């Protein structure tokens, strides 16, 4: 891989919705991607239902609409690459291969959840799947992800760390501090800004003076690309370039994914900051799962086959929900474990 080009050189031709003409995914990869996106969609719908039934408490930030981002990026990663993100994390966990049962159990605060009921929707980890959370302080995962990348460089282990953040988070000071540090030390860190246009009720235009977030690393010569985050093939292609660049020791890479969340910021959201028509038009014309399904049919996959997989996916999610609801709540003694490596009631 050639050394860092100018950030301009790394930018593909970006169309109206940040769409670079995406090379198509091979059929088996596209099928895998579609199934993963579908799993996330169905899982999130179920989580929304359980929330409505009072089985999930606290905050619950659904990923519906953004599935292509995490699935496309994950497809470009290898075993051992790390992932870290914000509180909008269910999709990321499922994409890394974490068990839907463990995630749903955590959402419902059960002892069998990934954090034994102590973390909740926003805070889960899996060392096995190299998923490092699940963080509720907007922007904080960016400096922590930079540190994950630092450990890779130090260990010379060829791994890259993917650090996801929202476009709202991109305005935190520590994001820019991290960019500089990562560029200075040439850390293998891929920063993925999931620009879903809103941070809570604040639209990106009212929060960022930067009009092209992919260029937010420009002062440090971090290559940046805008990608159609509603197209899993485009995401995958861009991610492959980013991964190759980082793995070759060139330093950090920045991707701005143009995406959209269909649901509210969290479960309670008055949604006065956007129109129904805007949401509806995104769903109708840009849905990543519909598009992938159409592409699969066009590529000759039998509709029955897809239907069978759809049923399978529903069953996986239903099983996770059933298992969560019949799992026990944490034992009161759990309060005292995990505070420190060795902890006991005072």
């Amino acid at each position: 891989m050639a050394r860092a080009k100018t950030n301009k050189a790394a930018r593909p031709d970006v169309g109206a919705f940040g769409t670079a003409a995406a090379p198509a995914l091979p059929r088996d990869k596209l099928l895998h991607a579609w199934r993963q996106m579908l799993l996330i969609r169905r899982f999130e719908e179920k989580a929304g239902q359980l929330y409505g039934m009072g089985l999930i408490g606290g905050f619950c930030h659904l990923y519906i609409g953004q599935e292509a981002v995490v699935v496309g990026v994950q497809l470009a990663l290898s075993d051992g690459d790390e992932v870290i993100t914000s509180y909008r994390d269910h999709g990321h966990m499922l994409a890394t291969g974490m068990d839907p049962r463990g995630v749903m159990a955590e959402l419902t605060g059960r002892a069998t959840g990934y954090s034994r009921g102590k973390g909740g929707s926003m805070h889960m980890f899996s060392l096995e799947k190299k998923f490092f959370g699940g963080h509720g302080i907007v922007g904080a995962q960016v400096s922590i992800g930079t540190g994950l990348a630092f450990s890779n460089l130090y260990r010379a282990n060829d791994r890259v760390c993917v650090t996801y953040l929202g476009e709202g988070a991109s305005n935190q000071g520590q994001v820019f501090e991290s960019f500089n540090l990562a560029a200075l030390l040439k850390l293998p860190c891929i920063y993925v800004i999931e620009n879903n246009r809103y941070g809570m009720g604040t639209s990106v235009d009212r929060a960022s003076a930067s009009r092209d977030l992919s260029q937010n690393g420009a002062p440090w010569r971090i290559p940046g690309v805008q990608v159609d985050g509603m197209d899993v093939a485009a995401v995958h292609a861009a991610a492959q370039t980013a991964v190759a660049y980082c793995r070759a020791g060139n330093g950090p890479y920045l991707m701005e994914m143009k995406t959209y969340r269909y649901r509210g910021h969290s479960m309670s959201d008055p949604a006065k900051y956007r129109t129904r028509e805007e949401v509806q038009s995104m769903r109708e014309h840009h849905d990543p799962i519909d598009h992938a399904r159409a592409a699969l049919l066009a590529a000759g996959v039998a509709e029955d086959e897809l239907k069978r997989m759809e049923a399978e996916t529903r069953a996986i999610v239903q099983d996770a929900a059933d298992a969560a609801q019949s799992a026990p709540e944490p034992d009161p003694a759990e309060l005292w474990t995990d505070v420190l490596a060795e902890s006991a009631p005072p």
Partner: protein
Amino acid sequence: MIKVTAAEAARMAIEEAMAADPTVIALGEEVADPEGGGIRKVTKGLSTRFGADRVKSTPISEQAIMGAAVGAAIAGMRPVAEIMLMNFMTLALDQLVNHAAKIRYMSGGATSVPLTVRTMTGAGRSLGGQHSDMVEAWLAHTPGLKVVVPSTPADYKGLLYSCIFDDDPCVFVENSIHLSARGDVPVGLHAIPLGKAHIVRPGADVTIISYGRPMDDVKKVAESLGEEGISVEVIDLRTISPLDEAAILNSVAKTKRAVIVHEAVRSFGVGAEIAARIHEHLFGELAAPVQRLGMPYTPVPFSSALEKTILWSPEKITAAIRKTLG
């Protein structure tokens, strides 16, 4: 009097302050009307009434919010900055602790920092480890800051109004559950002095000192013990720092017994400071050791089953009182 929520009461304070003084401005995430007027609507309507120049929604940049507010304050404005949740104060502590709190002193009194920081927090809603903490003790540990924790809608209005017109940096801690509680609130000018505790209920047998949301249960317990013939004096601190030591000592000198109740973690908390002061001044006169109730030494768990066990309760408060009575 009108019956409104604590959120509306806080809004009344800001609105009246803005109407009274053009140097009062508001800034923070989502505080202007296009973003909804604050996640709990405390600043709703203000940008419409006073103009977008005076009420600014900001990016998610706590350090810049706090720093900009400090800068505006030393230039003679009275900024009301919102840090959406108290846990996010961590991102802005440099500007608050190293700057706002110390500029008056380090300038030999030449520079005031008439800044108000509104923030919100509170356990009990399954918000987990990064969205529930009460960290007022950290702030009270910093000389140069005033730390205010209201407990009723009327106090939300009166204390916030006083914070805004105070010449020192004040942190005003709203409670996310209390914000929707209703109560009688005075119409028109209502200012409650900072640094003065409120004797909510006089009593002779034992003093309870508390503040913020646990006050609701403290008052109920005092009432029901009163029916049993136990006379409980209830003190609502209102201001944590500067602490109204005189009010506490006067009361405990009379009752000889004290119980302190707060939501924050018990270890190294505000209760420890109060207990120490009581012991320093009244050691020989106490009839029982001072009791402290607070959260155990653990982050706030997500599971509501676990979370319930770490909060105060009428039963725990009653037991602590009985313990002092022997």
